[in-house]
């Protein structure tokens, strides 16, 4: 399978008369874009904004991030979700780089939503503080979940995915600045130079804990709660086969942008043929019942063994209950003789003294640690808030609270905030971006 990713680097974004990309400047006709978004009659209110690195902007509640992309051959960039089912990961896709579409609730947030700062101390907590962002701030008529802590955010998330494809439409007929090629020979048809290297699988555990449909990560539009682990080509992940869910405490979340750009996959690709033979992805999940966890670990270890993998990397999208899946899968792989590395974040409590994962095992001797969900963060007010900052305190965001005996409310009268890292949008970057680690003090 061969994926050619044609890149257009966005150096700035402006609103103007027509949707266009020229010399690094992305121009968007705001009204036309909003009219397109309002075609979904669930959208009751919508605004479009630009948030660049260094802008004095705070966003909350942020629900999703997507890299704008388009396929010149007309296929959907999210097959089985936005368009007809088709093979992802093969052919040509164009991408607007250094740029993302962010979806922010105009009013209502929830457990799975987060915060992004574009300036100051808070900027470093999320990748999106470093990107040129097109920000859709909108509300919907989904009143059934307005006051629910868990939200499907379906209308808003879909609006974001559609907007990302709509905007990237302006480069459809242009020549990319550069082309990245992702190509792996079939697993059993590789040259002897590659085959003599230790073979490696990347095991992904996206979030799928909700029994009710509409919240979980999707693969080609299919709810991942309803699957057992399977083999995927890494290109499928990089090319829109996976849609981020709407469930996890948000610093643990892998947004759709994170799947489209998954650094762990790119790092394994970069080593392919040099130090490793990158076999591909084993796509697992994170279901809630013990039997489902054990079944998934069994499938993963079996597939790794059947493929003859010498090594594996396991990464989990979450903490707490999913730690059982993460450790269980890691141990199953080690027991199958597969040398494994884990990637995760930790939850050590506000005093830093709690056990880092809910379960541990001595066999897990190689772990890359990306952050602490329970770290307390205090940030000053920002000039502009996109969305509704009160949501952080009011709506049960995983790192916010309405009141606390000692710390007071998360959102202060002057717009300054105190929160747990838990609510930093995709802040722990277990997908591979993280330049944080955990140290003992």
């Amino acid at each position, binding site marked *: 399978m061969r994926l050619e990713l044609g890149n257009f680097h966005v150096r700035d974004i402006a609103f103007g008369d027509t949707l266009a990309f020229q010399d690094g400047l992305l121009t968007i006709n705001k009204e036309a874009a909003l009219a397109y978004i309002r075609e979904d009659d669930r959208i009751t209110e919508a605004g479009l904004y630009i948030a660049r690195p260094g802008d004095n902007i705070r966003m909350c509640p942020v629900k999703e991030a997507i890299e704008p992309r388009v396929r010149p051959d007309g296929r959907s960039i999210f097959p089985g979700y936005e368009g007809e089912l088709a093979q992802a990961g093969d052919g040509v896709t164009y991408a607007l780089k250094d740029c993302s579409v962010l979806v922010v609730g105009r009013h209502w947030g929830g457990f799975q939503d987060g915060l992004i700062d574009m300036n100051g101390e808070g900027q470093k907590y999320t990748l999106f503080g470093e990107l040129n962002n097109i920000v859709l701030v909108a509300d919907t008529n989904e009143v059934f979940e307005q006051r629910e802590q868990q939200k499907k955010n379906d209308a808003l998330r879909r609006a974001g995915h559609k907007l990302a494809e709509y905007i990237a439409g302006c480069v459809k007929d242009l020549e990319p600045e550069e082309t990245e090629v992702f190509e792996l020979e079939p697993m059993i048809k590789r040259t002897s130079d590659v085959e003599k290297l230790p073979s490696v699988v990347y095991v992904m555990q996206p979030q799928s804990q909700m029994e009710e449909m509409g919240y979980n990560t999707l693969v080609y539009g299919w709810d991942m709660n309803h699957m057992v682990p399977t083999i995927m080509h890494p290109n499928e992940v990089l090319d829109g086969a996976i849609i981020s869910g709407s469930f996890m405490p948000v610093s643990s979340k892998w947004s759709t942008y994170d799947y489209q750009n998954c650094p762990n996959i790119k790092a394994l690709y970069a080593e392919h043929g040099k130090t490793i033979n990158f076999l591909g992805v084993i796509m697992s999940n994170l279901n809630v019942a013990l039997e489902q966890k054990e079944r998934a670990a069994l499938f993963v270890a079996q597939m790794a063994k059947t493929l003859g993998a010498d090594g594996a990397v396991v990464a989990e999208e979450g903490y707490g209950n999913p730690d059982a899946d993460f450790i269980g899968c890691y141990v199953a792989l080690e027991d199958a003789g597969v040398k494994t590395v884990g990637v995760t974040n930790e939850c050590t409590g506000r005093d830093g003294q709690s056990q880092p994962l809910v379960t*541990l095992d001595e066999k897990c001797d190689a772990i890359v640690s990306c952050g602490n969900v329970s770290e307390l963060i205090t940030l000053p007010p920002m000039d502009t808030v996109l969305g509704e900052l009160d949501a952080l305190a009011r709506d049960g965001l995983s790192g916010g609270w309405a009141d606390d005996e000692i710390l007071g409310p998360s959102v202060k009268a002057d717009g300054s905030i105190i929160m747990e890292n838990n609510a930093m949008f995709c802040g722990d970057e277990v997908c591979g971006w993280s330049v944080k*680690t955990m140290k003992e003090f």
Partner: protein
Amino acid sequence: MKKAILYVNQFFGQIGGEDKADFAPEIRDGQVGPAIEFAKGLDAEITHTIICGDNYIGSNTDEAVAAILDMLKDKEMDLFIAGPAFQAGRYGVACGTICKAVKESRDIPVVTSMNNENPGVEMFKKDMYILKGGNIASRMRKDVKVMTALCNKLLNGEEVGCADDEGYFGRGIRRQVWLKEPVPASQRMVDMLVKKLNGEPFETELPIPELDRVEIAPAVKDLKKARIALVTTGGIVPVDNPDRIQSASATRWGRYNIETADGLKGGEYKTIHAGFDPGAADADPNVITPVDALKVLLKEGVYGSLHPYFYSTVGTGTTQAEAQRMANEMVPYLQEDNVDAVIMVST
């Protein structure tokens, strides 16, 4: 200039060797022994030196601590330093003991230094900064230099880095940090993976603490003849809590006679456990410590006999080391009474 006070033992206080180890605490104006070395780089004036014999503080701990705290009472002090204690076990424990007492009573930073073989490390590393020191006194200059560097950060309100960077024993506190060299997780993952695959040494970022697993005991052969005992970490005690068991992070336990009782009555027993809503357990302590059910089963002949006491402590926040020690203290009573099996009731 800020002010600091140093604690040393009889040897470093230049009183004498082992023969002077019973030396009662004294406070001297100015700098004695290692204080002179500290003074070279410390961003504070060492105004006093406290000297105390290792045996004295070891055998009269409460008195020694009280006397030293009294000596410090009217002294201005921004920092308290003890040692370095190297591998000297009694000295290390003394440094830890007095640092902990000063930290609790004065709310100022305390710093000491010990070798990793010093028993004081395990006892006190969670309570204070203990720098990793040499094993012998010839390392004095080096250890003092490392201590001074950390002391100055504390005195100047600078951020103290992680245990590895600063050279102190980890205090069991894990926090996120931004890497000085911003290597993304994906690259760290690949580096670790390739090393592990090639059998080269690698360093995990999440060291797994050594787990002390207890094998499940074989089943009781003949329950009808078995002598059974009841142990709980649910904090059930007589209402006046005669053994003063703590409500969290317990270090004490008690055993209470149930020979004649048909069960535990609310009002006579209660829970002092701070980790759950005590309402149901206070109303009926049997829900945590099922003496009532065991008495019924005993009458029915389901098992042989009941050990006349139940044992109780509090599990919440209690360290594994303390739990193990308390269990080791309980076990002889059970063995002496030929107990065959224990029902361990948590909450």
